[in-house]
Structure formats: C-alpha cells, structure tokens
C-alpha cells in the first residue's frame, strides 16, 4: 500500500531541502557543523569554541527539526542566555522559515515556540495553563520581583525587621554590623547587609537548599562536618543565622494564600515544582535545546532533564572555557560532566561534537589563547582521573593569515603603557583600519581599577572619546541631575536626623548637587521657574487643605475610620474654614457623591480618612510631572537632538528615567496625597526607599539593544560585558586579576550542594581567572593588544608573565600595513516590521513612534495599550476554547 503522506513529503523534500535553504541564507557548513545540524536523535553535546558558528548551527538545526522532521515549533524548548540572543534566534528562524513557506506553501507559527531565557521560559511554564494543566485557582501565578524589586522588598522596614527579628539580637547591638559580620564583612552599612543577604538567598535558591533542613543538618553535625567548618574557618552559629535569615526571607514572600511573590531564583523552583507535579510533563517538548550551557546552574539542570525525560532529545551547546558566571550560581560542571549526567537522568550516552574551526580571529590570536589555557593544571584530584575541562577540542583558525595579530605594549609604567597604546589606537583609526572608533574595545576584569582612568586620560589627550557604561552610576548622568534636581526644588529635599553620614553620605552629596544644578536651570528659564513655583503652591494648598479638614474632624469628634456619611458630613467638611477652591471642587464632585453612594450600597462604604486623602490629592503622579518638564527649553532640546539625529545619548537616558519613575508609580505611590506630603512620608518613600536604592545599586546607563555602542566613541567594557561580542581590535587593558579565595557564600553552601564532580573550592579562583582572560583574548578579529605593566607596584599574573617573554612581539615591531582594514558585513537578517505596531503607528504620528516605540518611553497613563492586549488575549482564549470543544465533539462522535 502506498502511504500518500510520505509520497507528498518526498515530493516536497525534492523541491525543498536543507541545501536550498543554506544557499538562500548564504551559509556553507563545515563537516562538524553539518553533523551537529543533522544529528537529531537522542542527547547531543556540542562544544563550540569562540567564533565557531554556534548561532548558525543552532538556527539550522532547529530549522531542520521543524521543516524536515515535522516537529512543531510548540514542541521545541530553546533556552538562551540573554533575551537579545533569543530575539536574534527567533528573527533568524522566522526569516529561514519564510523562505521555506514560499517554497512548500506550509506556514509555520513561531508564537507558540518556547524560546527565551530560562527565566522567561519558567515564567511561561507557570502561566501556560493549557500545556501544563495547572488549575489557576489552586495555584495562582506568583508575582515576579526583578532584581530592583527584590532589593526594595528586602530593604523595606517591614521585611527587614522580620528578618532581623529571627536573629534574637540584644536591643543595643547594631543589626547591620551583625548581619555583615555573618558574611565576613566589617561594615555598619544597611545597604551592604541587604545586598549580602540577597546574594546568599539567591545562591541557596539556585542550589535548591531547604533552609530548615540545612539548619537541622548543622545542629546534628558530625565530626567530618565540623572538620570542614574548621578548615574553612566557618562558625557554625553564623551559618545557622544565615540560613535562618533565608528562611525568614522565604516566609516574607507569602502575602496571603492567593498572593505570593517570587524572585528570579525561586521562580525556577516554582516552575520545577509544576513540572514534577504535572502529568507527563517530560513529554510536552520533543526537543530541549540549551545554549550557553556552561553558564547554567543546578536548578536549571533539573528543569532541563525533567523536560527531556520523555523524548530524551536534549541538545546542549556551550564552551566550558568561557564559563563566567559562578558568582551567579552557574556551575560549569553541568556541561563538563554532561555525559555522566545523561547517564544518570536519561540512562543513555550523548553524542559529542566539537565545533573547532574559528572563523573570527586571525591565526596568531587563536594560537595564543589556545596555548594560554594549557598553562593551568585541569586534571582532577580524584582517583578516576579525568579533567575539569573538555581537553580534546582542537581549536584552530580558519584564516591562514599568519602575520602578527597579537602584540603587547613595551613593558613599562602605566603612564607609558597607556600613551603607547593610545597612540597605536589613534593610528589605527587614522589609517582606516577600523570604520569607527566603536570597533576598538578596551576590556578590563573590573572598571574600577586605576589603570582604567589612566588609559581614558591618555586617549582623551589625543582627542579620542570614550564610552564607559559600567564605570559610573546611572543617576550620575547629566539628565538624572536635571530631572531629579527640578523634583527636589518642587518637593524639597528630605531632612535626615543626625546628618547625611554613613551609608547616606555620598547620596546626600548627590542630592544636594542635583538641587544646585536645577537652580541654575531655573535661572536660565523663567518659565520653568514659574512652573516650579506653581507646583509648590499646589502642594502647599493640598497640605493646608488637609490640615483644615483634620480640624473639622477633630472639632466634630469624628473618627477617621468611620464611614463617610454624605448627609451628616459633607456640608461640614465643605465649609471647613480655610479650605481652598480646589478642595471644595473635589469635595463637591458629583462623581464622588455617586461613587460614595454606590460603595455604601455595596456594603463597603469609604471611611472618612479615604475622603480626606482623596480631596487633598494632587492631579499628577511623578511620571506626569516628568512629562510636563519635557516641555521646557532645556529638556525639549534633548528630544530635538534625537529627532534631528545629532545625539541619541540624552533621549536614551530620559527614557530610562521614565522606566524608573513608572516603577515608583506602580510599586510605591500612584497618587500623591497631602497626608504623605505633610508628614514627610512621601520624602522617605521617594528619596530613601526608591532613589537611594537605585543610587546604590548603580545600574548602568542605557544600552541600545541593536547597536550597543554609540558611534564615535571607544567602548570600555568589563570582560563579562563583552561575552558573545566581537571587535576588529581589542585591547586587554589589565592582564592582572587578584585571586580571591572562595568567599563566605561559596564555602557556606558547599556542604549542602550535590557537588557531583565539582571543582574544589581551592581551585575555583584560578580556573575562573583563566576562563575570564580566555574570553577577553578571543573577542578580537584582526588585532589583539595586551597592556604589559612593569615597575613599582606593578605585577603580571601567570601565565601572562611567562607568555609575554622577551621574544613576544611588541607594539613598536607592529607594521600597520600588515593589519587588514575592517569592513563590516551587511547584516544578513532583514528586519521585519509589524503592519500595526510599526507602519500604522508611524503613519499616525512619526514623532510619537520615535518616542514610545523606538526609544521605549513609558507613557504615564497607558490604559489604551493594556486595554487592547486584554481584549485580544481574551478573544484568543475564547477561540482556543471553542476549537478545543469542537475537537472534543468530533473525537467523541
């Protein structure tokens, strides 16, 4: 009998095959790449060296699954390290699938494919009630706090007191000092105590440590355990305290039976629980694909293997030599030990493929960093041998060009080294070896080192401009000074008992400086001055109204909690002596009367207190206030600069300010009422709970997702920031990193982790340092420059010390003629534009498009967008339900 379907599929395949698609997407895979793309049965472990075409392979492999193996997009789970990487993969996949559709007429819908970071996919699992059959009423989706919200949550008095109380401290001891000392830090700062706690909590969550179990293990500890504690100079009491804090934190997340908060680390545990409790969750996805596997952690490994339990098609891609995120809980062992983990979880061996041809860098660069890694001893201590690294990768360059492509500076003092490098950089730019200064990157282990400033000055002396997004705090950009300065003039600065010392010292200086800057702005713009005066007057009126109304309540002996009685109370409060016109208007509003009556008939009448707050509330939120400021010359000019295309810097920073202010409106005070302004509560919340947190967390300046580095500027980055990027020219600005022994957190959790074949604590610092430099050295395409410092107070780490010997090429020996000129290739993925969100929005108003769609400003009253999505999602749900019921009927009959 002839199978019709297979006939059809053979016919289609003859018209459409992978080769056609490769040709269309201008890609010719090498042998290993081809193997990786075509291997689709069972577990697969791909080690992908730097610049070895990992993304292409992932794309084509997924394409192969969908088009030629009939795997539906919604049967694929693909996890990436960043949202940006997920976005690029998805766009690339869409492009390739569109080609396929045009040949075989078969449409592919990627919207149901699970593609994103682990965190976003975990969130999706929790929300996906269709796939994972959860009863939403039994287990409501928890509210996710991001890093900033988590900090807000822990540091607010209510939570913090709860945490401190479990330590049973004497009243006269300083809790911040005690908590910091648990983590081995001698500081009085609350901020430091909060961040130490959060770091510890997150690590515990990622390792799935149950705090109560840990405490009882500690209390029942045996000799072996005690020896571990002693040899790592850990106090048992400190550990018990740390886990008690963690336990109290977890309890603080539960607000009620139905309302629960979660953080990025616990979110993964939540998702894992759904997978364990659900039926057949190991068969939901036919293929589980994980990119950057070297940077995954323990809980993520559990999730991935649970998802792959049924079909066993798990494909992991990564490079153990580029593992960078131990401090966030990543365990490179997940990857290096993947073969035996597969045995453990799936009872089968993975196939191993090594993508070893480097298409990025010139040969000498590849040779250098490959050789670099052999200078550490990666052999395991344990009896069965083996290594803490994949040793058989055979990384080699594709480019045959054997000219000098890695040089070191002449060994000298920082001042000399920096000027020598700065001059070389200027020559490279002047001679057209790069198209723009932003193609030369300076990489540092940390941007706080003094060498960074020296280098920056050397470049600036030659007229070159630098862009260093992680070197400063976001609130220290000019636009933040301007906006928050005007806010300070309108609301007034907070008073603080005992002055601005300790934790608040620098923050206080910053606040006062914003005020000074803003006063200057007011001098230059009388209209702005008038505006500030008007807003102050509005606040004063609201405050005096509030007091006038309180006097009436006092006089009448009303309790603030008693229900507001329209007949008895309205007339009396309305004629309160000194009540302003505005206050009267608000009290007399017909809308208010209607609402009051409705609430009374519903049996939940407004208390008097509510009415007093309501009629003395301001018309605007802090975000509204921001948008009003943008009408004044100084701020309007920033929009004009972006509109004319001269400079995008200021508008990007303003956009970020709207995102922060929107968080204040959402998470703190959507409406400003006079009682909060009179009693200084607003100031405490706005300046200390909100702005101070942002100040201390020092988040970065805006980074544009598509083109991260502004044209005309030389980027200064941490090695971590450079992960996944490549540059024609790279300068390693500091080949030295102090090796810190394992800290309290690593030591404290070690005995409670599963620790299968894990790297010993004593070796971790060295391994991490090797890997970090490996990442830095493998970013360069045409030229790699290493700063070599020598002299008093200068030293160089091994293996640089040995490698940068007398025969190593130095800057004076480099003939610039031999350095190829870089020209950027056309972006190979064409952009998709949405008919409604791009085309129609632009046609409605190009400027509105620019501000909200291109630069991502948060609108102050964004009901329309929310409303549209709400209706569309509900209609989609309705349609799905109807389709489901229809299928039920047809299956039944």
């Amino acid at each position, binding site marked *: 009998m002839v199978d019709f379907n297979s006939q059809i599929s053979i016919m289609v395949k003859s018209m459409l095959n992978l080769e056609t698609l490769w040709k269309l997407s201008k890609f010719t895979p090498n042998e290993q790449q081809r193997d990786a793309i075509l291997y689709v049965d069972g577990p697969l472990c791909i080690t992908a060296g730097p610049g070895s075409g990992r993304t292409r392979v992932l794309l084509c492999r997924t394409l192969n699954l969908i088009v030629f193996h009939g795997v539906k997009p919604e049967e694929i789970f693909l996890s990436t390290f960043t949202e940006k990487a997920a976005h690029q993969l998805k766009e690339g996949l*869409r492009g390739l699938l*569109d080609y396929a559709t045009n040949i075989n*007429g078969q*449409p592919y819908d990627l*919207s149901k494919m699970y593609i994103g970071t682990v965190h976003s996919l975990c969130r999706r699992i929790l*929300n996906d009630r269709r796939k994972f059959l959860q009863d939403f009423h039994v287990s*409501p*989706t928890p509210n*996710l706090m991001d890093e900033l919200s988590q900090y807000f949550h822990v540091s*607010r*008095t*209510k939570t913090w007191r709860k945490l401190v109380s479990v330590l049973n401290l004497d009243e006269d001891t300083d809790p911040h000092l005690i908590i910091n000392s648990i983590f081995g830090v001698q500081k009085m700062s609350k901020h430091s105590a909060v961040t130490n706690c959060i770091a510890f909590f997150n690590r515990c969550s990622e390792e799935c440590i149950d705090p109560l179990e840990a405490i009882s293990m500690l209390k029942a500890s045996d000799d072996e355990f005690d020896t571990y504690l002693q040899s790592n100079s850990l106090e048992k009491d400190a550990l018990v305290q740390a886990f008690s804090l963690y336990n109290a934190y977890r309890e603080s997340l539960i607000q009620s039976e139905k309302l629960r908060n979660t953080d990025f680390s616990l979110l993964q545990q939540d998702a894992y629980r759904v997978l364990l409790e659900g039926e057949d969750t190991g068969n939901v996805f036919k293929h589980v694909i994980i990119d950057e596997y070297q940077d995954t952690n323990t809980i993520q490994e559990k999730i991935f293997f649970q998802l792959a339990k049924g079909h066993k098609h798990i494909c992991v891609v990564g490079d153990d030599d580029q593992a960078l995120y131990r401090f966030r809980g990543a365990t490179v062992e997940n990857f290096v030990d993947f073969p035996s983990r597969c045995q453990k979880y799936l009872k089968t061996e993975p196939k191993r493929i090594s993508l070893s041809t480097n298409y990025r860098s010139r040969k000498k660069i590849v040779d250098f960093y490959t050789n670099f890694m052999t200078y550490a001893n990666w052999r395991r201590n344990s009896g069965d041998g083996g290594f803490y690294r994949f040793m058989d990768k055979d990384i080699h360059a594709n480019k045959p060009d054997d000219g000098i492509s890695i040089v070191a500076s002449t060994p000298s003092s920082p001042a000399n080294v920096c000027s020598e490098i700065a001059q070389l950089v200027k020559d490279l730019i002047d001679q057209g070896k790069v198209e723009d200064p932003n193609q030369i990157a300076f990489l540092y282990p940390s941007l706080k080192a003094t060498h960074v400033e020296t280098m920056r000055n050397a470049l600036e002396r030659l007229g070159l401009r630098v862009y260093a997004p992680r070197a400063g705090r976001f609130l220290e950009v000019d636009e933040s000074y301007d906006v928050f300065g005007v806010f300070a003039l309108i609301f007034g600065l907070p008073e603080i008992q005992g002055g601005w010392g300790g934790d608040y010292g620098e923050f206080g200086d910053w606040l006062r400086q914003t005020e000074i800057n803003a006063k200057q702005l007011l001098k230059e713009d009388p209209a702005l001055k008038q*505006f500030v005066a*008007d807003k102050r007057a509005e606040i004063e009126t609201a405050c005096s109204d509030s007091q006038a109304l309180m006097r009436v309540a006092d006089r009448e002996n009303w309790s603030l909690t008693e229900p507001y009685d329209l007949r008895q109370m309205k007339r009396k409060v309305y004629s309160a002596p000194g009540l302003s016109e505005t206050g009267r208007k608000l009290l007399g*509003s017909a*809308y208010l009367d209607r*609402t009051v009556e409705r609430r009374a008939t519903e049996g939940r009448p407004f208390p008097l207190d509510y009415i007093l707050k309501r009629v003395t509330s301001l018309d605007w*939120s802090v975000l509204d206030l921001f*948008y*009003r400021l*943008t*009408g004044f010359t100084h701020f309007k000019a920033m*929009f004009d600069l*972006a*509109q004319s295309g001269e400079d995008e810097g200021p508008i990007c920073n303003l956009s970020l300010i709207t995102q922060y202010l929107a968080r204040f*409106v959402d998470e*703190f*005070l959507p*409406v400003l*009422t006079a009682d909060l302004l009179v009693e200084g509560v607003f100031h405490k*919340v706005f300046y200390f709970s909100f702005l101070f947190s942002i100040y201390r967390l020092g988040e970065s300046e805006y980074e544009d997702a598509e083109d991260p580095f502004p044209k005309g500027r030389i980027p200064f980055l941490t090695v971590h920031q450079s992960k996944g990027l490549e540059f024609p020219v790279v300068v390693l600005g500091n080949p030295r990193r102090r090796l810190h022994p394992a800290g309290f957190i690593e030591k404290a959790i070690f005995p409670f982790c599963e620790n299968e074949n894990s790297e010993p604590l004593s070796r971790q610092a060295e391994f991490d340092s090797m890997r970090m430099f490996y990442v830095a050295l493998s970013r360069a395409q045409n030229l790699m420059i290493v700063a070599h410092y020598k002299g008093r107070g200068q030293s160089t780490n091994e293996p640089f010390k040995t490698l940068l010997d007398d025969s190593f090429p130095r800057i004076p020996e480099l003939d610039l003629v031999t350095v190829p000129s870089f020209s950027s290739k056309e972006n190979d993925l*064409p952009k*998709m*534009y*949405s*008919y*409604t969100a*791009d085309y129609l929005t632009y046609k409605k108003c190009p*400027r*509105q*498009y*620019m501000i909200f769609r291109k630069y991502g400003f948060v609108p*102050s*009253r*964004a*009901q329309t967008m929310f409303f*549209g*999505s*709400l*209706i*569309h*999602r*509900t*209609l989609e*749900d*309705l*349609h799905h339900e*109807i*389709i489901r*019921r229809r299928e039920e009927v047809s299956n039944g009959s």
Partner: protein
Amino acid sequence: MEANWKDNEIQDFIRQAYQQNFDLLRLESGISLTPEVKRAGLLQVLFYWQKMRDVALNVSETEVRLSLPQQESPKEREFGIEGVVDIVREGGKTIIYDIKTHDGDYVRSHIDQYEDQLNVYAHIWKELQKQPLDGTAVICTDFPDDVKEALTSGNEAQLERALDRWDPLIEIAFDRRKVKDTIHSFGEVVDQIEDREFEPRSVEELRGSYTDRSNVSFGTHVCRNCDARFSCAAYRVYVRHGRGRADQIFENYYNDLEVGEPLEEWRTTGLDSVGDVEGMI
C-alpha cells in the same frame, strides 16, 4: 453539538478568562484599568460572543501570523511585513478576520487604511502561501454610541434595539491592484524610520477632524492623550492658537491633564492600588 455551546457556560468562560488575563497583564505591565474601563472591556468580549457567534464558532485558527519577507524599499533596504489575523473555514469557504478594538465609525471613515492592510494579508495568504480565500473582514469590538447610551440609561429594551442595529462586521473587498501600492508605501515608511524622519504631524493635520462623522480634531483625540505633546513643536502651535491671553494659555497648556470624570477615575484607581505606605519605608 449545540449542547456544547451553552450560552451561560461560554459567558462564564469569558468572564473567567478576562479576569485571569487582567491579573496577568497587570502583573506584567504594572498598569491597571479604572473599574469603568475594565467593565467596558468585558462587555466588548461578551457582545462579540453575542453578535459574532457564527464567526467565533467557526474559527479554525486564531492569532495566525502572516509574513511577507524579502521586500525591497525604494532605497533598496530589504525588509519584511508581518501581521496577525484569525482564520475561519466553514462550508468550504475561508475568510480572514482582523479583530480591532476600534469603533466602527472610525474604521468606516478610514476604510482605505483597513483595505490596504487586509489586502496585504490576503495577498500573503492567497498568492504567497497559495491557500484558498473567499473574503476578508474587519470586526470592530468597540460598541457604538447608542449602545453606550443604552448602557448608561440601564434601559434593557433600548439596549436590545441598539445592539440589533449594530453591525460590528465590515467586509473588505480584495483588490490586488492596490497591494503593490501599499507595499511600496510600507517600504517608504521603512526608509523614513531607518533614515530617522521623526517630524510630528503638521499643525493643519492636528486641526483636522479625527473621523468623518465627528468634529473632534486629531489634536484633541490623539495628541491630548500623548505624553510627548509637551515637547512637540506642532502641538505647541496648535494649542497657542486658541483663544485667551497668551500667559493663560501657557499655564493651561502645562496643566491640561484629564479633567472631569477621567481624572476622578484616575484618582479612584490610584487610591485603590496604594498599598501599605508604612511598609514601603
């Protein structure tokens, strides 16, 4: 089969899904809706079920993404167009529906715009993907003024009559000649976006009316709801040519927040969502 579509069951389903989506979106976006707006949204979906039941019951694919890759703009940029529609196949006929939360009046006064959009979708479906197509239509879920009035008055009979008169479905004719022009115009917009042409609409356009049937201007309907208006050169001119003394205008210009009920509703929502203030410190 009818047994599977008990009206009250579906209505319950809608209410439940609406509330769940509301909760999720609120968590995702941090934005909320005033109770009035939230109620109106639910009614839009319930009325959709009431008025468009035949369409809803026959939806065969929902949220289908259509894409038109490999286009070239006048300035030779490669780009693609994408959109999302619902597909209904019934009795051998296939129809593409685009559901909009706009009101019918607006759609009818800008019918060209909707024709262009659906013609591009039809082109992708029919000519690129070679799938059969018998028609395209827009469904407007925002109900017309007489339904709103009937809802406010609470008069059941009046509501029934108003609902009967209302036709949310607007059929769009397929005209392949226009597709080329639309794609060309789309390409021009792509060039304008990439070339960073972000001038606001002209003052004349701001003064022009928003729909054919009403005398509300674009400036009032669109700009008044746009936070970018304060820094917008066109809107400044538009506002300053009003009546009254210059300084008075200036003052009003910076104070032109919502007034009346929308402002009161904003207060209600805001005060409802203020949490425990002491706990924030």
